[in-house]
Structure formats: C-alpha cells, structure tokens
C-alpha cells in the first residue's frame, strides 16, 4: 500500500502522480507517504497530478483537499494539476468546487507557481 503512488523530487518540490483509484487504504497510505516525504526532504511544494483520474467523486475530492491541508500544516504548498474537463464539470455540477485547493494547468505551470510563491516568501 505504501508507495503505490510514486512521489518524485523535483528541485525543492514534490510531484505525486495519482494513476490509481484513491480507495481507503490507498488514500491513507498516500497521505502518510506525502507527509513523511515532506518531513524528510523539507519540500516547500507538492504537485499532485490527477490527469489519470477519469472519475473524481466527493470522497476522492475530499482526500485530495485533506492531503493539501495536511501538507500545508507541514509547510508545503499544494497545487493540483491535470484535472480532466469532464471531471471538473462534474464536480462543479455537484456543487463541489474545491475552493481551498490551488490548481494549475500542468506540472510546469505548477512548479512556476510554487517557485514564485517560495520567492515571495523569501
């Protein structure tokens, strides 16, 4: 379970690519992996790529939002990238706009965003 979702280091940031279903055990393990890695690396940013997800229901949306919140508590800013058009449309139609989570078009944009944020903080 731990390690099912790979987390890569990209400079001072982390990149997690969610390519499998975020079911209970997987979600829990993912969150633990993320937090442990932030602690170990001192990463200031976390990019979560969900371009592989065809369906994001409120459960998955909540897992993603919670992960961002947890990362923030540990000093890392999160950015969600790659959401598919039909996933975005569905979430919004349900009434779930994930307001608290920052988004970017792709990994490059996310890293630019995170770098700018880090620079501003300095």
């Amino acid at each position, binding site marked *: 379970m731990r390690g099912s979702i790979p987390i890569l280091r990209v400079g001072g940031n982390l990149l997690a690519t969610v390519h499998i*279903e975020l*079911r*209970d055990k997987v979600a829990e393990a993912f969150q633990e992996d993320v937090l442990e890695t932030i602690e170990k690396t001192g990463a200031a940013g976390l990019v979560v790529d969900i371009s592989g997800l*065809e*369906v*994001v*229901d*409120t*459960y998955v949306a*909540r897992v993603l939002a919670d992960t961002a919140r947890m990362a923030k508590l540990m000093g890392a800013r999160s950015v969600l990238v790659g959401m*598919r*058009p*039909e*996933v975005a*449309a*569905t979430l*919004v*139609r*349900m*009434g*779930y*706009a994930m*307001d608290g989570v920052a988004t970017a078009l792709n990994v490059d944009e996310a890293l630019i965003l995170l770098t700018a944020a880090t620079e501003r903080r300095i």
Partner: protein
Amino acid sequence: MALEAGDRASSTGDGEAKRGDQVLSRAEMPIACEDDVVIVRRKVRSLAQARGFDTFALAALTTATSELTRNVWVHAGRGRVLIEELTDGQRFGVRLEFRDEGPGIEDVDRALAGGFSTAKTMGLGLSGSRRLVDDFSLESKPGSGTVVRLIKWTRY
C-alpha cells in the same frame, strides 16, 4: 461558493422507467465491500460507453454511481444495485436502483438539500448525485433502509 442548489429542477421524478420505455438488459450487483465501489462503477461505465454516452454524461453517471455505491457501503455495510439499460425509442438510458437495509435517513429533504452529513461522506454526495442525472428518487425511513433510483439518458 455561491452555487445554486437544486438547479436541476427536472432531476426529480420517480426514477422509474416510463410506459413506452423498453428495458434492454438487467443485472444486479452486490455491494459488500469498498472494492465494489470500483467494480460497480466500472460495470456502469462500460455499459454506458457502449451505448454512446458522451464524455461528460459518462463522467456524470459514473460519478453518481460511485457516490451512491459508496453511500451504501459506508452507511449500511451492504446492499445491492440493479442496473438496467433502457431506450425510449430515441435515446438510450441507464437506470440504477440502489437498495440497502441500513439505518435509513431521518430527514430526506434535508439530506437532498445538500451539505448535510451524519457521517463524513453522506452530505454532498447525495444531493450532488441528484444534480448529475435526469431522474432521481430517494425513499428512506429510519430502520427500514434506503432505496435510491436514478436514470440518466444519452444527450442529443
């Protein structure tokens, strides 16, 4: 976020096929563990895709399926879902009927209004699902379980 609740006014009804609708296939699947959330969803997805549902309608249907299957598992522990393929002569439709013998919902109206949750996941999933489909009905009484019916039609 000021999103209008219940904006799919047409998404009530009784979730039953109308006279003149033809049932093309019928299948029942058990809901007994978390894996079933994905299994049921995949079944509904492949069925709908074969019937020509467009990407957006497909996402809406599979997401609603995921929500409701999870609801059954989380709140009742077990249940089942009836999956029917319909046609009204012009379009194809998928009809789902989720049944469980769980604790039931105390205040159905409030649950459907959204944002209300007895347990973590219930609130938005139920009202959200209703907004994603064309026909939706919810029957529940504390102590006698819950039945959720929905129909989604192909568009255009």
